[in-house]
């Protein structure tokens, strides 16, 4: 499970947690998140996220 971070606001998409309120169930791999999905905090598109090194 990997994490991806919004470069505009710092919200972190954790594949383990998904984004249930945004319709993305826990366990959803980043590659399977639709391109139409946007950051739940700032509305930035998926393309502006970068993988977060832990």
């Amino acid at each position, binding site marked *: 499970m990997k994490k991806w*971070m919004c*470069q*505009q*606001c*710092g919200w*972190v998409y954790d594949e383990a947690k998904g984004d*249930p*309120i945004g319709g993305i169930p826990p366990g959803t791999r980043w590659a399977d998140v639709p391109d139409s999905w946007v950051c*739940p*905090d*700032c*509305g*930035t598109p998926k393309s502006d996220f970068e993988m*977060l*090194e832990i």
Partner: protein
Amino acid sequence: MNATALKIQDFDDPGFNPFDTFDDSFGRHIDSPYPRLAELREQARVHPQEYKVLFGLPADLTTLDMPHFSVLSYELVYQVYANPQIYSNRIFERMLGPSFGRTVVTMDAPEHTRYRRIFQKAFMPNVIASWGDNLVQPVVDDLMAGFVGRGKADLVKEFTSLYPFHIIYRQLGLPPGDQRIFHKLAVALTVTSTAVDKAIEASEKLGAYYEALTDARFEHPGEDLVSLLTRVEVEGERLPKEILVSFLRQLINAAGDTTYRATSNLLVCLLQHPEQLEAVRRDRSLIPQAIDEALRLECVVITGFRMALVDTELDGVRIPAGSAVEAVNGSANRDPARFADPDRFDIFRKTTTSRHMGFGYGPHVCIGQHLARLEITRALNAMLDRLPNLRLDPDMPPPRIYGVNMRHPEHIHVRFDA
């Protein structure tokens, strides 16, 4: 380095007290805006009135010439924040611009997007994580040492109203002896509506100081935030000095006055619900949801101002270009269409449909929210660890969260086992 410029100057009238001016403008006498907001939201989701005026408070002098609309439902508040091409932040050019200067708060895309990205880089969760041990914890420990052995304390006067400011002062590397002056000048920046001459005086004095400080830290960088911000870049672009100085002007009240209030409100909510306080004490993994529930129920920044750039319509209400539109976060957070039993504090709430608007939403969502969460988490953990049997003091007045915006209690009197 200019030694004269690196000494902050107090107001020409050092007795000027901006703190009372600030609190009074939000209705110190009003216990809660929420019953009235519920009535108003029931009547209509958009009201053609300024939010403060809905409560009988004086209108904001900087926007007197504009039609005003208050947006009360969650769905429509979201709509305002999600459409910055219609609802612009340029309203802050007149509300805060005269004192803050050209800060990112006053900007729209594409300028805002570019500068926000550079600032955000310094406040990313992976960057601030190291501040927890190095910066936040020492401040928390120092302040708690002042009362931990006493068995009782006022958590506002002795802790919450101090710790985020001390953290910022350390981040900026400001001289300890002058911190009260910095705070006073920073709060005065926000009183443009009631004491514009003082706001401008504060702006000039903080501006002169921060200009000299950024020059000095650029030439001789340290580990502090100013040094970081003078050098941080995205795709080869650095922050122009004017934009950086404006950001620093804003930082003390943006990060301090909000976190202080949010921490205070969380503590009140937990202390008034001892069973939930005990649950969090036993299981610290509940802290994030306790913070979010307090931010929902008692958010600090209750309204977000925007300006309509074009003629538009919200819920059938015509909004002419040039109108002031207030997205009322506090009302959205208690919208029963999104939050069941919305006036109840419940850290176990199932938030399956909506996020709270405590930090706003959209391109201008709070830039410091990750730091705020880190600070509040450290503060709460320290209290739960070192103040056993923490409870409200039965011999003192209970805490009262007041006002229609920037809500907070003035005191939280507690007892604990020393």
